[in-house]
């Protein structure tokens, strides 16, 4: 979802722009440190890959629509968190300038959602799961879970930005809609990411990014305490959003109560309150099934989605690790099976 120009309030656009620029500068520095003069060549071809891969349309069965890979988590799993973020930044800039897809003033917000949260944040979810499970199965389960949560997290960030551009009390309504839609999109993203990772693991497992490969040569760079805390923080945020997704519907049944509390106790919404009085109905025009049904559907989508992602991930992981056992272990330095040991 590329945010166009006028959707965000100028103040929100400015704030996300500054955040996005700072995040991009940091990512670029981290990538340069790791890759050196290889940086631009590899990042360039990988960005071109993500761009081309987004053109492959996946038919959605009987529906007349189709989805495509977003690629943030895939890039992060293959190249590492910061390189993944840089790749997404390059893709977003080209899509914005060449195709007008995504606003120039919303580039910061788009990069924040899809690059920093989608790719680097997705990696923070992937890495602990991969370490915990280990081996090829760990890569697939971690990658799929990260793909699912990164789409949800990105849509959550998008909701925050949208809500900050308008009334804050709309946050719950926007969040439940966005997460409902993105629960489905994330499911597709998780399945595609898992299948592509499976393919790569079966053909060139040595290409998967090894955080520890450089740590072995350079012990000082072993997972620092800061990085560990960052991973825990993002994983926690992901879980929090998942919980919020399930709880949002129950909160949105009483939007007036929430608004009353925020408006009266904190005095945040006092100046905006009169706007709600004259036309309360258009707020609900979009709710085709009424507020309660949307809430229930959101919660159901969240639960079902999480379950499906983990079941499919476990199945895929089993298939790969069985195939992996029959083959001779990859001899490439830093291969997956060596890492699992």
């Amino acid at each position, binding site marked *: 979802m590329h945010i166009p120009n006028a959707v965000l309030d100028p103040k929100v656009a400015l704030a996300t722009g500054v955040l996005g620029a700072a995040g991009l500068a940091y990512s670029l520095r981290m990538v340069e440190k790791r890759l050196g003069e*290889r940086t631009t060549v590899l990042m360039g071809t990988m960005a071109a890959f993500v761009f081309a891969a987004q053109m492959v349309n996946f038919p959605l069965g009987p529906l007349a629509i189709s989805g495509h890979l977003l690629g943030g988590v895939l890039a992060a799993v293959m190249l590492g968190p910061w390189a993944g973020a840089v790749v997404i930044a390059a893709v977003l800039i080209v899509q914005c300038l060449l195709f007008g897809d995504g606003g120039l003033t919303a580039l910061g917000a788009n990069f924040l959602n899809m690059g920093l949260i989608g790719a680097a944040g997705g990696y923070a979810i992937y890495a602990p799961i991969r370490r915990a499970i280990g081996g090829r199965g760990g890569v697939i389960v971690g990658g799929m879970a990260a793909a699912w949560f990164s789409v949800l997290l990105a849509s959550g960030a998008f909701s925050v930005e949208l809500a900050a551009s308008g009334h804050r009390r709309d946050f719950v309504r926007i969040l439940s809609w966005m997460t409902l839609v993105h629960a489905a999109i994330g499911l597709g993203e998780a399945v595609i990411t898992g299948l592509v990772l499976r393919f790569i693991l079966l053909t060139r497992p040595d290409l998967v990014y090894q955080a520890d490969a450089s740590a072995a040569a350079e012990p000082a760079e072993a997972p620092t305490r800061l990085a560990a805390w960052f991973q825990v923080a993002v994983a926690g945020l992901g879980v929090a959003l998942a919980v919020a997704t399930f709880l949002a519907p129950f909160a949105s049944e009483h939007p007036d109560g929430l608004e009353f509390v925020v408006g009266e106790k904190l005095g945040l919404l006092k100046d905006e309150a009169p706007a709600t009085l004259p036309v309360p109905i258009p707020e609900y025009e979009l709710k085709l099934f009424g507020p309660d049904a949307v809430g229930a559907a959101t919660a159901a989508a969240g639960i079902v989605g999480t379950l499906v992602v983990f079941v499919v991930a476990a199945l895929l992981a089993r298939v790969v690790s069985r195939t992996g056992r029959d083959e001779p272990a990859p001899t490439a330095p830093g291969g997956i099976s060596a890492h699992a040991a």
Partner: protein
Amino acid sequence: MRLDALERYADLDAPLQRLDARLKLVVAVVYVVAVVATPVGWWGTLAAEGLLMAFLVGLSGVPPRELAVRWLGFLVLFGFLTMMVAPARPERAGHGLAVVALTLLAKDTLAFLATVLLVQVTPFRTLLAAMRRLGVPAVLVSTLQFMYRYLFVLTEELDRMVTARRARTFRRSGRLDWGLLTGLVGVLFLRAFERGERVHAAMLARGWDGTVRTLD
């Protein structure tokens, strides 16, 4: 999608094409920011911005029809997001929902036209060089240069792979053949990665030290 249609008018001998790319880039960014920052209800300003855009399109030699077709492609997205945000905007109290929604749509349209027109009158390689000279980090710019270089190579490679797959599989279209499609994406990844490694090795052999040197 035909990617080679992107820069069809960039090499025309027209007034906008002759301008310095840095000037065009700065003007486009300032214009987009000005459009986005225009408050609801400032009709005079919005109309002036619209007239300026119409004038620039006329000057550029890009057929308005072509811009309109590309704009139509985004209309659904613009409309959907506008209807999602417009009811929540505080300006609604003074102007009504329809006015707010139409203003947002107009701003999106003008900003979209500005970015698309910028690339239509400036070759992308020139635009990237201008970005570099305006102080955008060199690593980002050369990443974009390499990306632009291999964008067309990879999309054509994808085209060839899709053709080859079609020639070898007899399937009804619309079936859920995700296994085949993810294989396609996986092969594309491997080819892109290996191409990157090959290109890097070839560049090292020619003295590559990480800085891009151009003649202009």
